[in-house]
């Protein structure tokens, strides 16, 4: 199983690539809504891409109130 740090790194890489933000501008504790400049529909899009990438199912109620990459990665890690 990948480590939490590895999962976090993959989350940051995927977000940077898809939303066309330089990877070096993203840090684990960033608010991804603000840093990526995304709305709720784009957040759903990100969730779907993460589920496909990690081959997991991550119910969106587990993401209520989650807005930073580190917590998002920890929720994913719990499903790997």
């Amino acid at each position: 199983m990948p480590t939490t740090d590895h999962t976090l790194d993959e989350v940051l890489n995927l977000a940077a690539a898809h939303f066309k933000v330089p990877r070096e501008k993203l840090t684990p504790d960033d608010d991804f809504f603000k840093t990526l400049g995304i709305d709720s529909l784009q957040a759903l899009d990100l969730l779907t891409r993460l589920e496909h990438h990690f081959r997991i199912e991550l119910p969106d109620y587990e993401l209520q109130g989650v807005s930073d990459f580190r917590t998002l990665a920890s929720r994913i890690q719990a499903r790997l």
Partner: protein
Amino acid sequence: MNEFKGQAISWHVVNGAIELALHREPCNEIGSGTLEELETFAGALPELAREAHALIIHSTLKAGFSAGADLRELYEGSQGMEKSEAVRGVREFLRRIHGVMNTLDAAPLTTIAAVHGVTFGGGFELALVCDIIIADRMARFCFPELRLGLIPGFGGIPRLKRDLGNAVVRDLLLTGRSFNVMKAQQIGLVSQIAAEGEALRVARATASQVGKFDRRTAIAAKQFMKPIPYEELKREIEIFCELFSRPAVEEGLRKFVENEGLQPYLP
């Protein structure tokens, strides 16, 4: 009327397939305007079915297939009304939308929903009337009604029960969670997955294939394997109206409509 261009929907016939496009911004919310045009379509269907063997329903909007009922119209329309009057209005809307959904469900054509992005609530219910659901890899499905204190009202529960196991239906309804296309295929809801942006193309290829077979046989097969649960559909309207009359629903709708947060689509 083999061609129509409306405010919310349009249709035309290509290679024996009726292509019904949804295009009401921001995400094909289904309110009274869309309902009126869908009724026009349902009325034109017998004539259209004479020159077509398939119907494809799809959205031209980037956000998705449909975000469901127009909750803003529902909320604003019932403001300042006596509760009993508001419930009467909702019952009439449901009676009409059920008429459209039942007509589509029983259409003497092979019906295909080509979905992508947000396929929520009433949008999900529109897809469920179709014989085949073809989903873009990025499609996402959800029944968020319980967060408003309601149940799906456009025929969702009876049709989900018809197509899926009851245990799965309970999970989807009672958690109100959204789920992706892999899950949708795993539980037997989606039959084909298309790459991003390819659902309509795949639906056209499927429509072309089903056109190779004898139409009468296809209709007989469809009627045999896809009964319409009329009694449960009527019961759904009654339960919806009972729930709608409670103050909790008005509060739920108000919160949704006034929500300016970043996650209104995350139930």
